């Protein structure tokens, strides 16, 4: 527990102690944190697990502190808790992910009713940009847990050579209502009515431009090829090291083009999987020590299921791909966790008062 004469002094203390992401935070007073804990519907001392590389213990209260600091409303807590549980899962390799020199950042994808009840979490125009409070503060809350519970500090325990802006916040929902495909979480084994948070390490989004050609029914193949080139571009870890999950965010127009070609989400993953490779001559010529003794054509993914596909964003020319790190014992695996919204405690007036009072 820290003490300060006023909130301005408290903010300076938090900056000095390395407890922030460099931007101003809401001061996590005991009263604000206790109300955030109360809204979670769980006891503050309940342990979720440990977060590397500092191996701090994540409790409901510690996570609530991060959520307050990030500017979350109590409504967002179930999603923040699910995101923290996802990165704590041993399969996520959080310790290695936090410590790597790669730029990887946790991309938080939200599916199901929690997109509305714990938000709204934006899935449309500019969903990964500024102006969406839930997206901004949920992703930021996860980052603050990684800083304050996981003890990731740039240059000493977080060794990312540059990082990327998604390390401040990186959260969006899937535009399920306007998508012609089954939602991402259903493809990963959940029920459509489940609320699910999927988290995976990701590079900054790479834009993929494509304009359809209504005169050519085969033009969708060009879109598939361009998306595959973005996912498995040779200098990315997916092209060079291979074997990690990666993300494709289709805008509504590109989704419609692929859907009109008769493809399901699973078909698209299969088509991309088959196109995501680096030819042996490129491996031989450019990969140096990463080429190995027998430089063959290199498949970027182990299976189509490693390519996560969702629809989000406004309608137009641009989709996004997020290549990934591909390292760690589990090679940058995506982890999906069900949002436990049922135990969330709805308190009249709390949602609007907790973050700022």
């Amino acid at each position, binding site marked *: 527990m820290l003490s300060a004469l006023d909130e301005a002094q408290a903010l300076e203390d938090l900056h000095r102690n390395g407890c922030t992401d460099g931007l101003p935070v809401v001061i996590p007073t005991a009263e604000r944190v206790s109300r955030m804990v109360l809204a979670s519907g769980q006891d503050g001392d309940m342990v979720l697990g440990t977060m590397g590389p500092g191996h701090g213990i994540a409790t409901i209260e510690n996570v609530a502190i991060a959520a307050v600091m990030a500017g979350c409303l109590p409504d967002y807590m179930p999603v923040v808790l699910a995101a923290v549980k996802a990165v704590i899962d041993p399969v996520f390799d959080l310790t290695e992910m936090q410590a790597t020199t790669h730029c990887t950042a946790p991309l938080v994808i939200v599916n199901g009713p929690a997109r509305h009840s714990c938000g709204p979490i934006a899935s449309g125009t500019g969903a990964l940009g500024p102006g969406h409070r839930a997206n901004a503060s949920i992703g930021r809350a996860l980052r603050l847990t990684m800083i304050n519970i996981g003890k990731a500090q740039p240059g000493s325990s977080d060794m990312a050579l540059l990082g990327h802006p998604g390390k401040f916040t990186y959260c969006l929902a899937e535009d399920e209502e306007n998508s012609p495909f089954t939602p991402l979480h259903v493809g990963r084994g959940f029920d459509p009515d489940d609320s699910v948070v999927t988290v995976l390490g990701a590079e900054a989004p790479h834009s993929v431009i494509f304009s359809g050609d*209504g005169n050519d029914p085969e033009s969708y193949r060009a879109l598939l090829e361009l998306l595959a080139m973005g996912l498995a571009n040779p200098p990315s870890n997916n092209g060079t090291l291979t074997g990690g999950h990666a993300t494709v965010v289709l805008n509504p127009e590109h989704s419609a083009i692929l859907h009109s070609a008769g493809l399901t989400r699973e078909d698209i993953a299969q088509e991309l999987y088959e196109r995501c490779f680096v030819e042996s001559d490129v491996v031989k010529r450019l990969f140096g020590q990463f080429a190995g003794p027998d430089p063959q054509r290199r498949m970027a993914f182990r299976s189509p299921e490693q390519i996560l596909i969702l629809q989000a964003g*406004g*309608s*137009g020319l641009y989709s996004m791909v997020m290549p990934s790190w591909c390292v760690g014992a589990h090679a940058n695996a995506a982890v999906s966790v069900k949002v436990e919204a049922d135990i969330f405690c709805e308190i009249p007036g709390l949602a609007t008062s907790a973050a700022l009072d």
Partner: protein
Amino acid sequence: MRDGINLAKLGIPAVALVTEEFWSQGNFVAQSLGMTTVPRVELPHPVAGTGSENLTRVAESIANNILSALEAQSD
């Protein structure tokens, strides 16, 4: 929208063609450039890349609206 406004400012009859996705942005541009009354006609979205058959259909559906907007300027 900006092209339409620039032409209108030169005294040349103009109609801005704006797809429904960009309609509110068109209003914003018109407001910020001080010509909120610039004539405009709404198109479905998307039109780019939807093929010549669809473009013909769209053109036929809005041609009268464009003519009306131009005729209104000659009044």
